[in-house]
Structure formats: structure tokens, C-alpha cells
């Protein structure tokens, strides 16, 4: 999943460019299509309904990755 902030930054840049510059229709259409796609992906990301919670256990040897998902009941 592309980073949400990058997605939104690009989308904002597209809107600004489309609003401020005198573009060929071709180019404008390309930007528009990209914008619509990014908007779709951003909305999809926002639609994620449930917070994922992972617990990094107290084991000193467990190095880098979060190692197990935790359900709300584990709290």
C-alpha cells in the first residue's frame, strides 16, 4: 500500500497543476485520470475500518518485525 501522505500530496499537486496551468487537453486528461485514480486509492485506504494492533513481545531476541496480531480481546 502506497503511503497515504504521498498519495494525497501527489493528488494535491495534480489539482494545483490542473488549476493553474494552461495545459493541452491530452495532458490535462492524463493528469485528470491519474488524479481520479489516486483519489480512488486514497478513499480505499481511508475505508479501512478496523485498526490493526500488533504487539512486539518483550523477548530481547525478537529483532525487527512486529510478530503477531492482537485482537481486541488480548488487551
Amino acid at each position, binding site marked *: 500500500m502506497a503511503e*497515504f501522505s504521498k498519495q494525497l500530496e501527489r493528488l494535491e499537486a495534480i489539482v494545483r497543476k490542473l*488549476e493553474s496551468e494552461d495545459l493541452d487537453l491530452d495532458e490535462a486528461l492524463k493528469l485528470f485520470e491519474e*488524479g481520479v485514480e489516486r483519489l480512488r486509492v486514497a478513499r480505499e485506504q481511508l475505508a479501512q475500518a478496523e485498526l490493526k494492533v500488533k504487539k512486539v513481545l518483550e523477548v530481547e531476541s525478537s529483532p525487527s518485525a512486529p510478530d503477531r496480531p492482537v485482537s481486541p480481546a488480548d488487551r
Partner: protein
Amino acid sequence: MGQPLTEGPGPGAGLDLFAAASTEGAWTVGEVTRRARAVIEAGLPPLWVRGEITGFKAWRSGHWYFSLRDKSAQIRCVMFAKQNYMLPVPVDGMQVFVFAKPSVYEEKGDFQLTVSELLSTDRDGLWKLAFEKAKASLMKDGLLDPARKRALPLFPRRIAVVTSPDGAVLRDIQSVVGRRWPVAELIVVPAQVQGAKAEASVCSALNRIRRLPVDVLIVGRGGGSIEDLWAFNSERVARAVAAMPMPVISAIGHETDVTLCDLVADYRAPTPSAAAEAATPDRAEVLAHCGVLGQRLARALRIASRHVVERLARTGDRLARCMDYRLETSGARLTAYGARLDALSPLKVLARGYSVARDDQGTVLKSVAQLPSGKEFRLRVTDGEVNGRVQ
């Protein structure tokens, strides 16, 4: 008898006593106080002194004058305005620690302490002393510099939390993040936040997070006594927090207890919930923002394509006009052809009085041979058909 005078009046000089006290032999008051001051300043570096305040007086200049005493002795103290301006005014009888430079005030010949820090021991004084020492050390290394504070990420993907795994702190954070920004992933790194092992446990939790791809870290601990919060006042924990590669939000104790961890963190939140809010955007707002962007996108495209659409419209008009003209001329020609076809039509011939005879097959009967006596036929005239028979 007597000894030659080399430096100042010697003890037990008999007849030379008077000579020793002569203008040449005696020290001036200024010389002796200056010398005493040099000796004291060289022999007693700045130090922490504990005692009870007595004779406190704040001058209009803002300077404080008082004495520190214990059961057996007392020392005069001065604390200048530029050192004391942030402090609450102490009162006589208060037990304090002062950090001070022993010296001699030459004009009065007084042995005194020039105080640069003053802490009350009355409440949590010892903790405070340790705190101030650690704070001074952090400050010396620039770790409390406001310029070090990093901005929090707007849209965090991973939020790490160092806290007690079963406390209200985690519950609060989880609920706020779940409501505002479930897009993120919450990475919980449990730590002991109280007791003898707390310092080591928090440091090890921080160490583990250091290597994780985390956008922002919350260090949280519920309220408690200053002793309970001790781990978050440890210089070791503070330095570990300061060294984290990602922005750190600190939510330790109640709002009134400022810990070292709070001071080195990039953001200090009054409560764990507030920390979670600071770490996250509100999804509803972000969605609304996306909606606005979508509208702007569509509008911008409309504007960007306006010229083309206008051109298309103009071209369409021309095309239509062109077609109209073509159709008109074609229409006229059709009418002409129609008239000519009309003239050739057999119906016209019939109208002029001719008729056509056909047999029951529809074959046109053109010659006598086709019309033997008794042959039945149908005769087409201009306004219909009639049956006939050859006689």
C-alpha cells in the same frame, strides 16, 4: 631578635611588633579581603549546599539576600535577579538546596555564597535535585533545544506505543486511534513503567522500536507520585528518547508533572488520549478534504477542456450548416428527377386513355396471338381494373 618580614605580619613578633605594624609592614583591608577571596574561590569550587533560609529579603533590584543556617553555623547568601527570576520566592524557615559559589564580598568583608540555583527540599526536594542535575546535563548537550523538536507526521502508517501492556493508557490510545485513524497500524511495545526495572525495560522497548519502520512513537504512563514517574525522569531514558529516529510524543503522568522524557520529546501531550489525537488526523476530515479535491479536479478539467469543447461546438455548427446546404441542393435535384420520373410513369400513360391487358398470370397481352377467342383477361385503366373476354 625577631624575623625579617617577608609577607605580612608574622605571629609572636616581640619588639618588632610595632615595626611590623608600620605602614610598610601591614596589609591593607582591601589586600586581605582580596587575598581571602582568591583563596576561598580557589579552594571551594561551586557546590550544592543544604540549609534553612533565614533573614530572607528581596531587594527592589530583584536580588535576593538571605542566610543559610543549620544547627551550628550560618552563611550569608546572595542570589541575583537574573538567576532567580523564574523561581517562586522562598520564605524563612524553608529547607533548601542551593548551588552556589563560595566567595568573599570585599566591600563588607563577608564570606558569602553567590547562589545560581535554589531548590526547595520541602516537597520531593531530592527528586528535584536529581532532576535538575540530569536536566542540566541534557541541556548542556543541547537535547532540550527547541530547534530539535521534529514535526509530527500528518498521516502516520505505523504508530508505536511504549507503555504498560494492560493499563488504561493503552486502552485510551487504542480507542482514539481506532476512532480517528484506523488506517494506521498500532505497534504496542510493552514495558514496565514503574518499579526498579522500569528504566531498563523502557530503554529496551525504545531500542526495539528504533529498528522498526515506525512514523511516530508515543511514550505513555498514567499519573503517579514523582517516585512512580522516576523512570521517565532518568537521564538514561531521556537520552534514549532524544535519540529516537522518529518523532516522539510523551504523555507521562498528569499535566502538572513535567518529566525529563516530556522535555526531550518532540511533543508533550497532557494525557494519553491527547497524545493519540496529536499522532493522528481525523479520518472524517481527511475524507472531506478528498471530496473537495475531487470536486476541484473535475472543475479544473472542465476549465482546462473549455477551449477544446468550444472548438468542437463551433466545428459541429459548421458541419451542420454544411450538411444542411448539401441536403438542400440534393433535395432540389430529387424533386427534378421525381418530376421526370413522374412523366415517364405508366400511370400517366393510362391517364391519357391507354389501357393494359394482362392474363391471370399477370403477363401483359400485347399481340393478337395472345388474345384467342374466349380468352379472359384483366384490363387496367387509369382508375382501376375490369375483367374482360375476347369475343
